[in-house]
């Protein structure tokens, strides 16, 4: 098993990444930044997975990471498509503006 320090460091960085992504996701009003923060969180999770795969030696983890990266790309494509639509209508990517559906 790798020594004590490296295990903690990678997990610490991964959790930091996820934390940052979540904060950006919740605070920032600009839709594109929100998309970026989702990607950030996904990469954080990838880091965790790779570290776990390395530790346990089984390949499942890395396989999952590869899938995650590809699907994240698809996700971003869809996300940007939706944002583009909204931008064409409201000429702004501020999520506060979109509150037609409420009550």
């Amino acid at each position, binding site marked *: 098993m790798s020594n004590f320090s490296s295990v903690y460091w990678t997990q610490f960085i991964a959790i930091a990444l996820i934390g940052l992504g979540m904060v950006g996701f*919740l605070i920032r*009003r600009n839709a594109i930044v929100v998309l970026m923060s989702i990607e950030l969180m996904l990469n954080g999770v990838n880091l965790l997975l790779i570290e776990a795969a390395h530790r346990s030696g089984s390949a499942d983890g890395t396989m999952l990471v590869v899938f995650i990266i590809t699907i994240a790309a698809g996700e971003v494509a869809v996300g940007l498509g939706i944002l583009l639509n909204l931008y064409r209508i409201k000429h702004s990517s501020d*999520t*506060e503006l*979109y*509150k*037609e559906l*409420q*009550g």
Partner: protein
Amino acid sequence: MMMPLLLAAPLIGAIVNGLILRPATAKRAGVIASIAALTSFASVMVQHFAPDAGPFEWTWFTVGELTVKWSFASDPLTWMMCAVVTGIGSLIHIYSIGYMSHEHNAYRYFAYLNFFLFNMLVLITSTSLLGMFVGWEGVGLCSYLLIGYWFEDINKAKAGMKAFIVNRIGDAGFLIGIFICYQLFKTLNFAEIAKLLDTQTFDVRMLNLAAFFLFIGAMGKSAQIPLYVWLPDAMAGPTPVSALIHAATMVTAGIYLICRMNGLFLVAQDTSLFIAIIGISTALLSALIATSQRDIKKVLAYSTVSQLGLMFLALGCGAYLAAIFHVMTHAFFKALLFLGSGSVIHACEGEQDIWKMGGLKKKLPSTFLTFTIGTIAIAGIPPLAGFFSKDMILYSALTAKSYGTTFWILGLLVSFLTAFYMVRVWALTFLGEYRGDKHPHESPATMLIPLYILAFGSIVAGFLGMPEGLHLLPNYLEAFLHPVLGPLVEGHGALSEERAMAVATVSAIIACSLGFYFYSKPERSETPGKILVPFKTVFENKFWVDELYGLVIVKPFDALCAFFAKFFDPNIIDGLVLLPSKAAQGMGSLLVLLQTGIVQTYLLFFVFGLLVLFMVLLKGVVL
């Protein structure tokens, strides 16, 4: 075989008249009704000579160990009451043919009259308390229908309703009496109750309670102190109705009930005392009111109430025979007086105020003759019927166990007043000049024949129950009713029977002459009013009893019901019930506010939920 015919005849008469034939003219309807009444009278007579074997009965309903039957049988007391009811009933039917001749659909009147006769017979002939109760309410219903016969006038309909409601209050008491009797004796049959009372001993308090509630029923039906207010208003009905129902038959039902249950009332001493007190006070009160009434029928109505008071006095003192004897004689002369006043009213085209009559002696000779006989009989002048029966009551009051003499003195005062106001009415209607603007004429024959028969009855009826003391005639009535009512109680009072009779006769004669003196001459007729001015207004306004009832009971009750109906039910109860739905709507609108539409706030709730989740999950482990 006679019993089913006795009951069926009036019922069939009612159905034929009321539902099937509905004859156009009063004459045809009247004839059918009278035939029905006469057949039942004939069957009563036949019944006497060829009595049926057992009771005519079939089961009504059985519940657990309680089986209730419709059963009708006849014993001397029932026979006598049936004879009085059907006899006088048929006479009144014949009389009404004439009286109702100008009514357009009179079949309704005759159908109700027959139906009343049927119910009265059911009341008298049934052998169980519950059977009697059926007749009891049926009779109340018929009196409601008959009083409100001319329903176009709303006051008459209201009078009918008042009669029924007040009777219903009495019936409620009667019902409780039935329940207590059932609880005590486990049966409702009169014969069995009488046997049980002789053999076993029961808790006296319960017996008194049962007697008390049965008396409340009697009070309602026979118009005693608290529940008498309906009888004067019942005069709104046609006069033959007042004659039949409110003089001869229905009002005596209460007395019949107590006589039928005499075993119970003998044992329940303090209730009997209570009955005597109520009886004498009703008699006194109504006699005083009768002295200053303007309407001829109102006078007779109050006189009936006071005579009934006397009968209850007799019952209270245990003299059941005296009460029944007075019922019989009273039926004759009171029916006669009512029918007489009916023919007077008929003659004066509906005028009922005695101050607008007078001098009818010349115009209505036969009515005058029969009315005079009736007045003398009710005043208690020997040898007519009223004297003997009233005297028997007074003597029995004298010899009663407690307060004998006070009852006797008050009874004497009542008979004095009775004589006084009867002569007043007699004089004001028949003597002097005619004060009204109508032109009265003598009534047709169909109305006069019953008057003559009743007049003859009023004379002869007295001889049936002559007291032994006079040893002129044996006391047939006492012999006849002995098995049912038990021995005549031989008490000893302050005076012997003969001397009491003499005092009563003297007071009656004084009262008549006083009445005659004042009211025969028009100028002198005002003086008694002036002498007792303060009392006159009190008597005239019937001691304001109706207004008192209205104020104390009717108005607050209406107000309470209105409060419930208009405010309490729709607002309070409905409000309370609709509260949860309003609360739900309110909460709903609060929750909806959370959906602001902004994605960020949604995500905040999402993360907040996540934190709550972690807190709960990790509570045991980490936190």
